[in-house]
Every structure is written in C-alpha cells, then in structure tokens.
C-alpha cells in the first residue's frame, strides 16, 4: 500500500517501528496532493510552509496521539493566522486571531495540519457545490459530488490527501459525504466535542467529528478531540471515554433496531440491498435485529428546515462588513454597506436559508414555525429515547442514494431530501456513524448509518468495527 493509503494506526505503528519518519509521511501526502488535487480539489488552503515548524516540533510532541500524522481541517474551523473562509466570499480573506479548541487539541497531539478543506458555503448544502470558490470532485468518480457540506474533508481522506480529517455535521454533513466517499464519518453526541472556534451555522445542531479511513482511526481521533471545554457552555463534562477500548469484534447480544418508516421511504434499491445485506452479516455475528417503529423521518426534516435556518439567520447576521471579511465598495452609508456586503458576500443557498430563518422567527410567525418545530423536536428526541430503552443501536442507510452527479439537483428541496436519514440524528442530539457497507453497480460507495443513544459512541464504534471486519472492504481505495 502507498504511504498515503495508510490509516492513522498503521502510520503510528510504522513510526514506532522506525519504518517511517514523520518527514517521509508528510512528503508522501504532499506529493499525493500534488498528484491528485487538481482533479479532486479538496483543499481551499494547503499549508506547506508550516510543515517545517511542526516537524521540528515533533520531538516535543512525540508522545502525542497524532504525532506526525497529517490531518485536514474543514474550512469552518478557526486556525490562528490561517485563512478560514467557510467556503464563502464573505470570509475569503479572513484570518482568525485564534485557534478553535479542536485545532488546539490537534496541535497538542502533534498532528501535522495539511490544510483547510472545501465545503458548502457556511456548511449549508449537501454536495459542496455551494462553495463560493470551486467544486470538489468525488475521488471514486470525478463527475460525482463528494457530498456535503464536509465534501472537501471526505474527498481528501478518500483520495489519500490526508490520513484523516475533521468535518462538521449539522444535518448530516459528516456522515453523508463519508457515505458518498466510502469513508467513515462520526457525528458525536451533541456536546461531546467543543464548538469553540467552529463557525456557527445552527448552534443547537452543529458538532465537529472525525472523517477517517476506518473505524479504529475514528476512535483515535475522538480520543483527541472529545471532552469538556470551558470555552463552550454547551460542552458536556465527565462523559469522555477511551474510545479505542471499544475496538472489539463483538456484537453478540447487541439489539439493533431497523426503523420501518425509514426503510419504507423511496430510495435507491441497490443502497437498500447493500444495507440489508450488512444487517444479515450482523445477525450472523450474533446481533439481535428487530424492526422498530419511529416517527416518519420527514417530520424531522421539516423541523430541521425551520430550526437550522432560524439559528443560521441569527448566526450569520454578524457578517456586516464592519469588523472583518468582505466590505462592499458600494457603501455610501452604513445601511448600504450592510445590504451590499451581504448581497455580494453570500451565495444563493445561504440567502435562501437566512430568509426562511428570518421569516420563521419574525413577529406573528414565531409560534407557528420556530416554536412548533422545537416542540416536534421534543417528540423526535423522545422517540429515539423510547427506542434506546430497549435497543442498543438503530441502523439505517446513511443516504438515499450513492453520490449524486455534479450539477444534478437544481431544486433546493430535492437537495434537502438527501439528508432525510441523517437529519433526525441532529434533531435528537444523539451520535451516529456512517460506515462503508458496499458498492453499487457503478462501483460507487454505499454507507450504512449506526445511531446510538446519547454518549453511545462506544457501542457504535464496537458495532461498526465488527461490521468493518465482517465486510472486509475498508482497505479498498479510490483509483485516481
């Protein structure tokens, strides 16, 4: 295997065994980026110059969990002195004066940050086509989207342009691209990973999580980034574990629920077949699989498309041209500056969601929309809690299809529907992981979603690890 195809744990073994040095690893990944980047286009910013400092620092951080390991970071996480654009013209030249909490943790662990990856603008999108700069291509088929909004991160991992990456997930933005790109993507329980430094989209839904080549890497990365942060008031204390202790091949007695209402929705037959085949494998390995009844996922989607835009409309109001970011040249007075800056700085989807959100919060509509959606949110949370009383995990497809073709969806609602299986998870705040479970007849990756109860990352990792070993496809790489 090429160095750039290796996982974090394989790289660490080789470093420990003296077979590879961090400098060699860094070079291998840099070369790979040079080789494929003009076709995949995962990165908005490639961080070359810093490599020297970080490698020099390697001696000091040798004991770090990610010492010498190249990691990519989605471009909505603040990196001190390094452009953080969120895929938007609004922040095209914005350089934060501070590091996000997760970036600090990566640095402390000795990681080599390769660059900032492409994304849908302000994390609003499901294909990374909403990036204001360029489109990222799926390494498995360059005419297809990598998914979104963490498309750049998922593509970079799948293309061997980094050992692993961080993404963010508000309605599926880690899991869906992971599914499309044949890699592992985990959205932790809301509150497990600090949001300090994550440019906010929907505050009550956003979470940062790992995108990796396999489940073991996901556990390693979680050990680095999870945990309480006093800078984030919604960050939970006392729940972090050593996630690598769940890397066991054992699902005997695990009760897994298959929601009938989710599987009854119309979606790609090959995806369904692949997911159900994986279910059989889990059954053979000793898991107890049963059909369960849950609220139709479309209600969660409807609630999401009120709550997320509402919070986003408020979170994105700060982009007004006064303190940083774009300022329109047409700015004869403050009012003109506000409206022109936001007109020039924001793309279509962002404007659309800001308006929906503003409308949903406005006088006369708050009760009918925002308040109603928050109540439905309670119903959905209770629904999940109810199932998890009796079940360890819930299993669904991650996405209703494999990676869509680029430029194939022009209707916003159609694009929103690709999140149907992932959104309920964010609404309930529970953790979920997308793990590759097969390929369709076009060799495009299919992902399966394992949902756990609050703080159930351990169970998810264990089941996913077991499945990964059973399916034995985790070493397959995209041919570029």
């Amino acid at each position, binding site marked *: 295997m090429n160095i750039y195809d290796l996982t974090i744990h394989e790289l660490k073994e080789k470093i420990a065994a003296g077979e590879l040095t961090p400098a060699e690893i860094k070079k291998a990944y840099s070369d790979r980026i040079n080789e494929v980047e003009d076709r995949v286009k995962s990165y908005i910013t490639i961080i070359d110059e810093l490599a020297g400092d970080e490698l020099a620092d390697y001696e000091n951080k040798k004991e770090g969990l990610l010492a010498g390991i190249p990691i990519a970071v989605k471009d909505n996480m603040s990196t001190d002195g390094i452009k953080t654009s969120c895929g938007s013209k609004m922040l095209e030249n914005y350089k934060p004066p501070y590091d996000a909490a997760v970036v600090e943790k990566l640095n402390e662990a000795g990681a080599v940050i390769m660059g900032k990856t492409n994304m849908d603008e302000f994390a609003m999108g499901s294909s990374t086509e909403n990036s204001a700069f360029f489109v990222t291509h799926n390494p498995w088929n360059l005419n297809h989207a990598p998914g979104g909004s963490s498309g750049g991160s998922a593509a970079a991992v799948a293309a061997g342009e980094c050992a692993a990456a961080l993404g963010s997930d508000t309605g599926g933005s880690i899991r869906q691209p992971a599914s499309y790109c044949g890699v592992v993507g985990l959205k932790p329980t809301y509150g497990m990973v600090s949001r300090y430094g994550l440019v906010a989209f929907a505050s009550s839904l956003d979470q940062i999580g790992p995108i990796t080549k396999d489940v073991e890497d996901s556990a390693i990365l979680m050990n680095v980034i999870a945990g309480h942060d006093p800078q984030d008031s919604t960050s939970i204390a006392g729940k972090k574990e050593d996630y690598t202790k769940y890397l066991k091949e054992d699902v005997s007695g695990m009760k897994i629920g298959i929601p009938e209402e989710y599987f009854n929705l119309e979606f790609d037959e090959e995806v369904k077949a692949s997911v159900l085949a994986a279910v059989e494998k889990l059954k053979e390995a000793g898991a107890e699989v049963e059909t369960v009844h849950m609220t139709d996922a479309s209600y969660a989607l409807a609630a999401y498309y009120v709550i997320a835009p509402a919070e986003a409309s408020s979170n994105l109001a700060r982009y007004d*041209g006064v303190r940083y970011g774009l300022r329109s040249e047409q700015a004869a007075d*403050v009012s003109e500056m506000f409206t022109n800056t936001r007109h020039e700085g924001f793309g279509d989807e962002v404007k659309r969601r800001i308006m929906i959100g503003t409308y949903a919060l406005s006088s006369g509509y708050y009760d009918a929309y925002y308040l109603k959606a928050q109540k439905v949110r309670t119903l959905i949370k209770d629904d999940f809690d109810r199932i998890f009383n009796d079940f360890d995990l819930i299993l669904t497809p991650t996405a209703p299809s494999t990676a869509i073709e680029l430029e194939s969806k022009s209707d916003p609602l159609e694009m929103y529907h690709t999140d149907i299986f992932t959104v309920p998870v964010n609404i309930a705040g529970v953790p979920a992981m997308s793990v590759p479970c097969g390929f369709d007849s076009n060799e495009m990756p299919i992902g399966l979603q394992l949902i756990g109860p609050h703080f159930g990352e351990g169970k998810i990792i264990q089941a996913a690890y077991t499945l990964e070993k059973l399916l034995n496809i985790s070493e397959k790489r995209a041919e570029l």
Partner: protein
Amino acid sequence: MIDKKDVEYAAGLAQLKLDEEEKEKYTEQIGEILNYVDKLSELDTDDVVPTAYTVPMKNVLRKDEVKESLPREKSLANAPDEKDGHFRAPKIMSD
C-alpha cells in the same frame, strides 16, 4: 402561502438586497420549502414542551476573573477600515 411582500419583509430584516428576479425566485423556492414544513402541523404538540436546550446542564458559570485581552492590532487586523484605533465604517445615514 408566502408572497413577495413576505420575502421583501424578511430580506429587509436580514439586510439582504434582492432584485426583482431574485424576489420572484426566492418567493417560489421558499414557498415550496414552507409548504413542506407545513407538515409539522400534522403532529399534535399541544402538551409538548419545546426543546430549547439540547444538553442537560444548568448554571454553567465562570469566575469573575480578568483574562488578557487581544492586543489591539490583532483585533483590528481584519478590519476593512480603521482610524485611530477605531473600526471605521461609513456614516450612519445618507442625507
């Protein structure tokens, strides 16, 4: 169910400038989305408490201690315009 006036109102509140074409387009698209959202009314939520907080904590508080502020140059580093240590913006109102 949402008309152009509503879109204009929302755009105004959100400080977004839209031309006529955009107003038409957004009115249609947002209308479709809100139609979909309307299915929320199919669920009975009369006695349901809204979820305002996704985490169970209360009283997350910090001590009243002064921490070092950002050096002023760093605060102003991304400013599109500055003067005498102030962020500079256009005047409030045109005549």
